[in-house]
């Protein structure tokens, strides 16, 4: 190629430059949309994980009776019938709950009944709340709130 031609015409043709930028833009748009979709999916997954934890903790709490690890179940155990009374809360077990033994992501358990409130732990950050209607041993109705937080 002669120098004159290079100076007059340039090294890269205009249509090639246009096509190059069009392809570049398309690649950018594709990567951007892919990145957005992946991030969105990750957020949904995180929220789903939190929800799962809170809902399952709450379910375990009101359906099981665990004397050694009351964080896993605070329902009343009926010795006469030899069975756990689901949704009936044993306040002695509630007193034994230790925040230190909370499973991963479980940050707070709150029990509201009549005018009273029992709170164990403290919720922080992004949390999901699961609530369950229960009865106390004494016959009062109450609500158990369970918070799973990131």
């Amino acid at each position, binding site marked *: 190629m002669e120098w004159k031609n290079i100076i007059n015409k340039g090294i890269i*043709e205009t*249509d090639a430059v246009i096509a190059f930028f069009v392809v570049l833009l*398309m690649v950018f748009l*594709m990567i951007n949309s*892919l990145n957005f979709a992946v991030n969105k999916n990750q957020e949904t997954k995180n929220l789903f994980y939190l929800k799962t934890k809170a809902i399952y903790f709450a379910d375990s709490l009101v359906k099981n009776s665990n004397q050694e690890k009351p964080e896993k179940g605070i329902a009343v155990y009926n010795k006469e019938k030899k069975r756990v009374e689901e*949704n009936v809360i044993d306040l002695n077990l509630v007193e034994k709950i230790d925040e230190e033994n909370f499973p991963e992501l479980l940050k707070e358990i709150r029990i509201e009944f009549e005018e009273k409130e029992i709170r164990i732990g403290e919720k922080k950050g992004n949390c999901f709340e699961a609530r*369950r209607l*229960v009865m106390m041993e004494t016959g009062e109705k109450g609500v158990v709130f369970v918070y799973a937080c990131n």
Partner: protein
Amino acid sequence: MPAIKEKGFSFTLEALISLTVLILIISIPIEENKSDLTKIYSIQKENDLIKVWIKEGKFNEQEIKKDFKKMFPFQKGEIEFEGKKIEVKGVKGKNIIKNSGFYYKNEKLNEISVKVFI
């Protein structure tokens, strides 16, 4: 602006087809995680309501409404028992989740059902 040269950047038909297919594949939206716990969570809460009301045995209309609101603060609901129908005002969602339980009263088997519009 200089005129576009005849000899330019061009694709063959095969290249165009393959590029179009590639773009179409990449453009397919990634499926969101649609696993939803709303249904199972609502069923659990409905079960709680039924269990507690049956254990309590009062079936007081005002208390039933109050308890329902505690569990479903924003949703519309319907509770049916002993021929009565209690409506709780709220947002009427497209999906209906219904649950029922049975209890004895005056030596008669009764049914109580809770319906939530999610």
